[in-house]
């Protein structure tokens, strides 16, 4: 039950993108197109879950026993970069089209602050291994949901008659703000 609460809490109530405002770069960058946004969500889900797991292992088996917690950010970034490289190799092999669609945003998952944020939050909240995993997966699912919703919204906005002042990125930012308000409405649910 605790795990379920944690999961739903991370997906909806403490959504990583719209409530904690982490990982806004891909939210703006890859949400032009629904299928690319879906692929980005999948790739980030893979990276987030794996790096949450790997960073917990590094933290508790290496950094804490050796009292070198000051290396936390450095070693987490190292792990995340390696996982992203691995994901890129897998995506390029399994789906060349998706690889082409995601383009530069695939290696840029490395610098997606949501990934490092989740790893660091896991440490701050003192989560256990399973809790970190659930937290990572929940954040990733929350990220993917927001990506898909936002891409759908933007595809509709692309057809709409937007005033010239707001056309392009401004109206996307306004939309993201409104979507964020919607997700804030979940607060108090848990």
């Amino acid at each position: 039950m605790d795990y379920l609460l944690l999961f739903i809490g991370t997906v909806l109530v403490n959504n990583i993108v719209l409530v904690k405002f982490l990982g806004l770069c891909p939210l703006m960058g890859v949400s032009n197109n629904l299928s690319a946004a879906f692929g980005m969500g999948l790739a980030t889900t893979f990276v987030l879950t794996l790096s949450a797991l790997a960073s917990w292992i590094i933290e508790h088996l290496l950094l804490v026993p050796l009292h070198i917690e000051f290396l936390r950010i450095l070693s987490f970034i190292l792990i995340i970069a390696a996982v992203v490289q691995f994901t890129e190799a897998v995506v390029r092999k399994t789906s060349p089209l998706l690889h082409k669609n995601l383009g530069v945003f695939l290696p840029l998952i490395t610098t997606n602050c949501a990934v490092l944020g989740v790893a660091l939050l896991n440490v701050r909240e003192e989560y256990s291994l399973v809790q970190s995993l659930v937290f990572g997966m929940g954040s990733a699912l929350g990220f993917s949901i927001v990506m898909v919703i936002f891409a759908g919204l933007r595809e509709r906005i692309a057809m709409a008659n937007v005033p010239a002042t707001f056309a392009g990125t401004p109206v996307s930012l306004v939309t993201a703000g409104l979507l964020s308000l919607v997700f804030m409405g979940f607060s108090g649910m848990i």
Partner: protein
Amino acid sequence: MFVATLVLTALGLLLGWLLGLAARVFAVEENPIVNEVEALLPGSQCGQCGFPGCSAAAEAMVEGNAAVNCCPPGGRALTESLAELLNIDLNSLGDAPVPQLATIDETLCTGCTKCYKACPTDAIVGATRQIHAVISKACTGCSKCKDVCPEDCISLNPEPLTLNTWHWTKPEAA
């Protein structure tokens, strides 16, 4: 200090080794020259070379399974630039397929627009119930329009000889 350095080095080495392993397992055979060849090809995916599309043809050309002059829409100019890129002697090639041009028989055309929709290079102009015409400069002779025409009024013929298309014939073997 020493421990920290050691741990980071070990971590880096381990991750590097894992990535190297992954790169080998998930290796994608990609030949950069294939992309270069594909960029030269017309890109209309007409299939006259016998391959499903231009990228498949480019791969076959690089591997040597297809002759560089197998692309009729590209014509002589393409053959020459491909032969230069792939370092193939032009004299070793046989006769190239002659580029074909589509023509529409105006007496039979009903203006159904089917050929006009099928054309990959937008070489056919026309509208519903208007007689269509082929822009010969844009036609690659892919015969897609011929296949869809319900009136069977499209024919493919070699390009008529003009000053721009004429070139010296090969010397006959003694």
